[in-house]
């Protein structure tokens, strides 16, 4: 095989979606994939005109989204199936995990959920179609509403739900939405938007979306697009690099809405050792939280602080390691490949018995490291560090502004711990085993997302 044909054989063509139309082509090559040439003029909606859906009634938008969800379920044109296959081929997620994640996507587009989202995150559906009147104690009457924004979304690719929820929220704002695709999910957003375009060709909502790839940080694109004359807000999902790059462009009139990169932990009280059955149940719940998206998500637990003697902790670690090897809704049994640097960190700790005890092999079924101090490295690829503590209150010092979810067992101890954890910087307390789910209609990363996306406009007397 010549060099040229080898490249051709492994390059995947990634379509773009620009203002409701699919654009194909392989003009720009990025190694393993190629995209159509980027026409940056086509990616902006000039402020001289209102966005296509600015004045579309919200009920009509919800109808379109519901129909999109239904069509995604049936997928007669095979867009989602095609995206799934492409993702399974090049993506980092296990095929089974990815499949179940794709199967869940249409359920996010139900009317019930979207209405709950608007009510919870915004404060009422009336704010999207018109003005709400308030009178202050001084007798002055004002009106305000949620006005459609102009958004650039920098998507994360570690779970396909990110693309779906970004499209849903973007559509519900009635605003214009430019989605910047991540290299680890080049397909999901476009597949959903192509389905939308079939359900409602030429509809204002359809024309309000573009989804394209450029290399994050590419000055030739970002320097010209990320300006207040075109967009109001940059909505960034994690990715330290993308946040640092975003910082260059943020200024008056162009704001950053950051779903910050996060890490998550668990706290397990001595109540877990009440009986063998309880311990088994706790280990299962803990494994569920660790293995979310094979531990690639911000909600995946990486450190577990446990009130236990060393012997108790060892018994727990053994159970936990076995549980981590089981296939779950968002976890493969053994589908994770561990980076060699992490494997070597772990192998080094194996030599440090009794200060560190390592349970499990680096074979994708899960590794548990038991220690008295947290390890220095970032546990990933189904690796968890169980740290023995005197009391869970002591463990609060390990929570910080980077800590998103804290899973606690037993749930009765949440009331005691949650204020301390919040004071230390964490944003989300859950009962151990419940880290997956939620995040819609309630605060996420410390704010109400839809509320942050829209522009709040007042009309005062």
């Amino acid at each position: 095989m010549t060099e040229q044909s080898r490249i051709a054989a492994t390059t995947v063509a990634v379509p773009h979606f620009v203002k409701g139309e699919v654009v194909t082509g392989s003009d720009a090559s990025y190694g393993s994939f190629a995209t159509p040439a980027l026409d940056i003029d086509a990616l902006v909606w000039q402020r001289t005109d209102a966005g296509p859906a600015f004045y579309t009634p919200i009920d009509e938008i919800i109808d379109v989204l519901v129909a999109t969800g239904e069509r995604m379920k049936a997928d007669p044109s095979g867009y989602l199936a095609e995206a799934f296959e492409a993702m399974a081929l090049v993506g980092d997620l296990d095929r089974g995990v990815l499949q179940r994640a794709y199967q869940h996507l249409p359920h996010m587009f139900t009317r019930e959920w979207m209405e709950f989202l608007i009510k919870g995150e915004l404060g009422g559906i009336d704010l999207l179609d018109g003005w709400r009147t308030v009178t202050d104690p001084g007798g002055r009457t004002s009106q305000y509403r949620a006005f459609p924004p102009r958004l650039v979304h920098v998507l994360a690719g570690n779970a396909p739900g990110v693309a779906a929820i970004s499209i849903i929220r973007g559509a519900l704002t009635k605003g214009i939405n430019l989605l910047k695709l991540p290299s680890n999910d080049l397909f999901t957003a476009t597949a959903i938007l192509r389905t939308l375009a079939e359900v409602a060709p030429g509809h204002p909502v359809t024309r309000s979306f573009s989804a394209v790839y450029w290399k994050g940080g590419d000055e030739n694109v970002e320097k010209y697009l990320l300006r207040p004359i075109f967009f109001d807000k940059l909505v960034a999902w994690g990715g330290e690099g993308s946040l640092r790059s975003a910082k260059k462009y943020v200024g008056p009139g162009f704001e950053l809405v950051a779903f910050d990169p996060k890490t998550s932990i668990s706290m397990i009280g001595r109540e877990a050792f009440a009986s063998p059955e309880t311990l088994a149940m706790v280990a299962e719940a803990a494994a569920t939280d660790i293995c979310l998206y094979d531990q690639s998500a911000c909600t995946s637990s990486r450190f577990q602080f446990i009130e236990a003697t060393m012997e108790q902790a060892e018994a727990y670690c053994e159970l936990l390691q076995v549980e981590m090897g089981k296939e779950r809704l968002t976890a493969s049994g053994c589908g994770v490949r561990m980076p060699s640097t992490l494997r070597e960190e772990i192998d080094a700790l194996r030599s440090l018995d009794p200060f560190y005890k390592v349970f499990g092999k680096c074979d994708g079924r899960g590794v548990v490291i038991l220690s008295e101090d947290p390890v220095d490295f970032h546990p990933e690829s189904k690796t968890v560090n169980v740290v023995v503590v005197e009391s869970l209150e002591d463990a609060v010092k390990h929570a910080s502004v980077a800590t998103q979810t804290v899973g606690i067992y037993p749930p009765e101890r949440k009331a005691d711990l949650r204020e301390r954890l919040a004071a230390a910087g964490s944003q989300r307390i859950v009962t151990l085993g419940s880290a997956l789910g939620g995040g819609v209609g309630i605060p996420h990363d410390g704010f109400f997302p839809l509320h942050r996306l829209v522009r709040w406009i007042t009309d005062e007397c």
Partner: protein
Amino acid sequence: MTARETLLGMLHQPNCYTMSQAELVPLQLEAARELLAERRQQLPILDRRARETGVDRIDRLDDLIPLLFSHTTFKSYPNSFVQNGQWDRMTKWLGTLTTRSMDGVDLGDITDIDDWVSRLWAAGHLVNTTSGTSGKVSFLNRTQGDDDLLQRCLQQLCWPEPIHPGNKHHVFFLGPRSGPYLLLIAANHVARMYGRPDSLHYLSDETLRLTDITRMAEMRLKMAEGRATPSEIAAMEQNAREKGVEMAARFSEMIRKIVALRHEPMIITGGWLQMWQIMEGARAQGVGNGEFHPDTVIQSGGGLKGADLPADYREQLFEFFGDVRTQQGYGMSEMSMGFPMDKDGYYHQIPWIIPFVLDQEGVKPAGPRDGVVQGRYAYLDLSNEARWNGLITGDRVTIDFRETRPETRLPGLVVHPAISRYANIGEDDKIGCAGTIDAYISGEIGA
């Protein structure tokens, strides 16, 4: 004589760096087999790796690839050992990566990490460390035999037209006088072997202290746990700035001395950016092109480390220094010796170091061991007595396995001059919502 001894015995033979693969590979294979069998007995971590990857025969050099470690291994100790002063545990950790017993190390009343290193040296473990930009340094153990080899390597500089020791050169070293970096250890050997005892100049007369580096790690932990105060962070940054100002002043003084002695032979060792600054400083003092003594040695290497220099900086530098000698190589602190650069700018293989070109993930060969192959650089250094020195690096290199090529006058396996780094995590545009506190620690300490 064993195959390994044969390879090491090639040092300073006229064709040491220009041998054909046909001559070298059979010897390297045999030496690698011998060494692996011995090291598996000594190092459980290597034995485990061999068992887990199912490597029990070495028929081809590529069979060694699963046995190469990443640089992580040599800094895989838990930071808490250092912060809590658990030197017995640190010693045990180092022992797992070392062929020699650690029993002779005096662990009584160790005050800090520098003290620990000096105890290791006192017991014959001549460890060198890396610069640890992340606040965590690697510890690479060496025996006296390993250091003897280093000194033998330094018996000649400036291949392919070498010079030999003679205490005739003024020595300018653009770094601290001493410390456990391999570069400093080598610089001190060079100064002793080549330098005029009355004219040895260092940017700083202090010893490089690891404590200063680990203090940074402690500060990061404090910040991560929310215990740091704003004034502590400010003091840390202020300290770094003051050090910078002090160094700049000393550097100017050193440039003045270099200019004054430019008509006599000298050895200048430093980074490219520093060389550039010497040129600018000297020009500002009215020095023109080609005024340096022809036996002057410019010793540099490595990348630009983010410095903003013109693309033809080397050409410009050597136009300025004139017809001087140069010692440049491609290597790293972990290698026993860098691949020396020939007159055409290509780096030549050292007989006892087996280079590999791997795919981006560092798992498989990027191509067959013939022709020109580009990928991640890895190597097995057969010389080290104290450790198993097979490593996968972050460098993207092009290696030419051919016997000869039009671009070089000298034959043998070469590494091309264009060497770059593979993207760090996060730079490959794969975006996920998971992150760590590191993203929140900004400023100089987080850089």
